[in-house]
């Protein structure tokens, strides 16, 4: 079931791409690096990233890689069914999204980071030591933080990026990441009693929600 939903979500995400091309605004040219080649006055040529694009690609590529690694670990270690399903979904969706971002980053000649950064390596080391409910708790709480950070980075790219392909990737990915965050929060609510903005019944991982269609804005 989770697999089907995940695949549907990605298919819809891809289908929504052309319509969403209109959704990113042009940035403030004051932040465009001097000497950037332009295809027309005011319009940077394709694959001409700025600093925001580079920072965004690096952070999100590393973060996505960590999602997949931690998700695989959770697939083996997780105690609760909901956590296992969530981890499986993270592996599938972040693998797919990571591949897409990697291709866009390569096309824009953005440096591709290797492995994990120091902070994610530390988390990996800590998760390695845990089992059972303690693992679930640490994994889900870590996922909440990681998805909070990723959401902010995607918003940063939407507002400050320059490469249209990377910006549109961020537009498509943001609703999906928000949905992941909601699901992780729901699990934390159900298993740990963490306070959540939405009632668990409204956003149970098993239920289809519009956000998983790639977040096409309603009637826009």
């Amino acid at each position, binding site marked *: 079931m989770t697999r089907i939903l995940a695949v549907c979500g990605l298919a819809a995400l891809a289908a929504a791409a052309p319509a969403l091309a209109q959704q990113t605004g042009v940035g403030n040219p004051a932040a465009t690096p001097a000497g950037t080649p332009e295809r027309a006055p005011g319009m940077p040529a394709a694959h001409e990233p700025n600093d925001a694009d580079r920072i965004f690609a690096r952070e999100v590529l590393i973060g996505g890689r960590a999602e997949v690694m931690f998700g695989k670990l959770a697939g083996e270690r997780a105690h609760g069914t909901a956590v296992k399903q969530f981890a499986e979904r993270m592996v599938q969706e972040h693998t797919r999204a990571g591949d897409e971002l990697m291709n866009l980053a390569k096309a824009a000649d953005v440096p591709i980071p290797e492995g994990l950064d120091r902070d994610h390596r530390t988390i990996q080391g*800590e998760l390695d030591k845990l089992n059972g409910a303690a693992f679930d708790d640490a994994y889900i709480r870590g996922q909440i933080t990681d998805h909070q*950070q990723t959401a902010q980075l995607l918003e940063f790219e939407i*507002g400050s990026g320059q490469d249209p392909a990377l910006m549109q990737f961020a537009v498509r990915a943001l609703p999906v990441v928000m949905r992941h965050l909601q699901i992780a929060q729901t699990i934390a609510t159900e298993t740990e009693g963490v306070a959540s*903005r939405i009632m668990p019944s409204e956003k149970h991982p098993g239920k289809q929600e519009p956000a998983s269609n790639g977040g096409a*804005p309603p009637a826009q």
Partner: protein
Amino acid sequence: MAAFTRCLLLAAGLLVLSLAAVADQLPPQLTYRALPTRPFDAVRTADEAEKPAVEQRQRAVLEERYDLSDRPIPSVMMSGGRKSVQGGARVKLPQGVTWDSLAQMSPDEIRRSNLFPAGFLPLPHVKQATGGQVFPNNQIDEIAKQENRNLRRFDVDFDLPERFTPEFPPPIFLSSHPELGDVSRGQLLTIKNYYALMVGLITPVQMEGLRLLLTPFPQEEFNQTEDRKSADQSLGVTCLDCHSNFNTNAAFHQTPDVRPQAARFRLDTVSLRGLFNQQIHGSKRSLRSVEDFSEFEQRTAYFNGDQMSAQRKGVNLPERHDQTAMMAQMQNIIDFPPAPKLDPLNRLDPNKATAEELAGERVFMGKGQCAACHVPATAFMDNNMHDLKLDRFYPVGATVNGLVIIPEGPIKTFTLRGIKDTPPYLHDGRLLTLADCVEFFNVVLSLKLTQDEKNDLVAYMLTL
């Protein structure tokens, strides 16, 4: 034993949590304004080249959301008698639903079916990534004429049709002289004419406050540096460039209280009428006095809540014990427009109001639940902030013309006195008419009002 194990588990979890909390520190550009990287001329050339596409994109958003046609309510004028009030619900419905059928659905149903009308969603700035203050043409033209000061940007124009903005210039009513009525003489208060218009009517302290409110100071888009959006080196903007004649001209900006830039929602300028009754200021900040607000606007409306940028471009910090106090004292004598059908407790006088208006007041106080926050006796405010929880109706994280739509959280209650004078409505101006407001709250609060009740509510609000 179980409890002990649980403690151990929690301790282990917290260890990882604390590590996770420091992981992936976000880059500072999410919080701080980047310094410009290019010479002014290159930026201006690029901005001017982009402008037609920028304008077209926003026009498409507006046309998709709203019926922008000219449909004034017959014989209803704004308080200065110079401009009609537009009528009818202008937000367009998604295909396959009516206002009534939508109001019958639960928030979950509306969200799952993607049926929340686009016009009920936050309204993007014309150019979200750049943002900043955008003035309507009437203000730009009048300031150019009177002061030879330029408020026009080369990168964006004002977006809403003039029929959905307040009358210009708006009348001025003084709480210290109710008997005089409008004292504006049909003019826009500026640094050129303020003394001639107001001497004899206000106190020396108020006069000095007024002068400060009309004195231009550097602002993020209007200043001397290469990081500006006016063609000429600008003297800056004044408080009343947005709050024209202490009302509003619908100039817009972005909230200074949210980052990153893409998530900063639009702000429609609020009227300063009746400020004497307002206990909290700023749609998100809940500042507790007019003095605080007058002081801090130099950091916020002027510089987006970025004190670093303010320092670079030339911030003006009014002296707290003297200048700020005088600015506040001037603002605090600005009254609402007269509402002759209201009694001293702001309830309709049954001898003066029509049957429809009285019916509207009953809905307002009862089934419509309007008075839960818009309390008549306290100038139709409750001096609180409320979260309408609109994210019950839409999936979070969509992007509309560069604006990322996230829940806006608590926003302060605005007064409804003089409400017909201050379109567009809601903190970001997403609702163009009072009928739109009725449909909005009918859905958001699940009120299930009849068409008669909706019409009555609009008739009632026109009396305020």
